[in-house]
């Protein structure tokens, strides 16, 4: 099971990031999770939103380069070691994690959610589901 994430090219200069965020919020799209990876010159803004189609339409109509891609959303149990368990499974399975970030929701403060993308996403998803790790669906994201 995958969820959709938007990846957006942002220049590493003042105002570039807030411009994109404003575009999204003005269009009424809610952001569930936000992460930014950056270099000296540019960054990639990664967001999980409640309405992916609307977000894509909004950004593309404003000439923003954006891509929707599959990532894995994991619900982490509220007990010690749950993150390392997930990562351990992937390492044992020979899967490299390219990036990950976490978020929480106001509605459920007992859980943390992890978004991750692996070089071999399908393989990662298979390992996690075989080991009974609870993964998020698009539906879950919409209802958060």
């Amino acid at each position, binding site marked *: 099971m995958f969820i959709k994430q938007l*990846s957006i*090219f*942002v*220049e590493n200069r003042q105002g*570039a990031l807030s411009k994109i965020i404003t575009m999204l919020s003005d269009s009424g799209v809610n952001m569930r999770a936000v992460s930014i*990876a*950056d*270099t000296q*010159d*540019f960054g*990639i803004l*990664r967001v999980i939103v409640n309405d992916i189609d609307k977000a894509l339409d909004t950004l593309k109509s404003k*000439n*923003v*380069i954006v*891509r929707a*891609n599959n990532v894995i959303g994991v619900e982490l149990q509220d007990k010690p070691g749950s993150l390392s368990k997930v990562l351990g499974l992937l390492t044992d399975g020979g899967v490299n994690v*390219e*990036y990950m970030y976490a978020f929480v929701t106001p509605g459920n403060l007992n859980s943390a959610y992890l978004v991750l*993308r692996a070089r071999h996403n399908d393989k990662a998803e298979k390992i996690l589901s075989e080991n009974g790790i609870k993964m998020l669906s698009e539906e879950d994201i919409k209802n958060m």
Partner: protein
Amino acid sequence: MKNNYYQPDIETADRKIIEKLQSKRLTEVVKRVYERVPLYRARMDEAGIKPEDINGVEDLGKLPFTSKQDLRDTYPYGMFAVPMEDVVRLHASSGTTGKQIVVGYTQNDLDNWGDIVARQLVAAGITKSDKVHVAYGYGLFTGGLGIAEGARRLGCTSIPVSSGNTARQLTIMQDFCSDAIACTPSYAMYLGESAAKAGIDTSKLPLRAGIFGAEPWTDEMRREIEKSLNIKAYDIYGLTEIMGPGVAYECSEQKGMHVNEDHFIIEILDPDTHLPVKDGEKGEIVFTCLTKEAFPLIRFRTKDIGTITHEKCKCGRTFVRMSKPMGRIDDMLIIRGVNVFPSQIETVLLQMNLSPNYQLIVDRKGVLDTLEVQVEITEGTFSDTISDISRLEHELADRLKSTLGIAAKTTFVAAGSIARSEGKAKRIIDRRN
């Protein structure tokens, strides 16, 4: 493979014979323009040069230059070196900027023009029994009638379709069984695409050669055209001021264009010193007409940048070979002492399928010039991972370094972020002064 020559005696002549012929013709043409073209007489008098001072190609450097502006200033007929009763044809060029200019041809000029175009046709494997589909415009522009002149001299059949109406072009190409086509490279690309869309299998057509010129094109375009039309594509060079198509022509080696040196002298000059550069070094392309009667130009500065090589060509021709023009001298930047042309950067961007919207930022850190190339990111180049984009930046930097000879910092910027004026991106920001 058989070497195809139209006039083998001169096309493969010993260099000494070519230079001797050039020397003889140069002294004659200088005498003619001094006597008949007031501008040249005035310029030579000003420089203290008499026709007797020019005894051969070694004296070429003593002669004054001719600029495009001179042609505008003497418009329409001030540069003509024969009375109008000897002029049998006029052509004109609007140029991409500025006022149009008009050029003239005598009967001999047209015959010579036909000969040099015929050399290209024959080099492309075209024979008397072939049919050449001419999709260049017929009119004041030299393309259509110039190729037709060559076909007439060679004795092959020309099909004067002229430009436009692509559906009709394709019908004629099939029905009339065109063996070769001549047009602009961009139109050839379009014809190829249109043929595919119309479901025409170009490998079943007799078409086997294409002669393309009159605008810049890349090796990628050449491969594309050769594939889509299933032909071998030849690059023909020319400019209205000097003759029209055929000033230089390509052989089947496809490694530069042979300059018709019995009719023209090519010089590649350093943009600053105006002295000849070495083989392979970039400089301004300058032409002198040796045989032209109606409109003979001396040391005409094309403002185009290119290179020449005297290296022997495998085809057996001994004429020097010139590169495609690499850009306009007005766009040239000197960075760390190296001449850089925006067109070189455009070629690399095109090869890597990157956006054509870029800008160059030239700055100075201490005593060192710096160059940054900013390119807009596109859907096709954007990736979700930093490492992919960084890798692309590095590849671009590497390719630029090998093309330009200097290192450049490469940066991707947001789509639409590079300012555009008149629809075109503003290319250069020079912060050094």
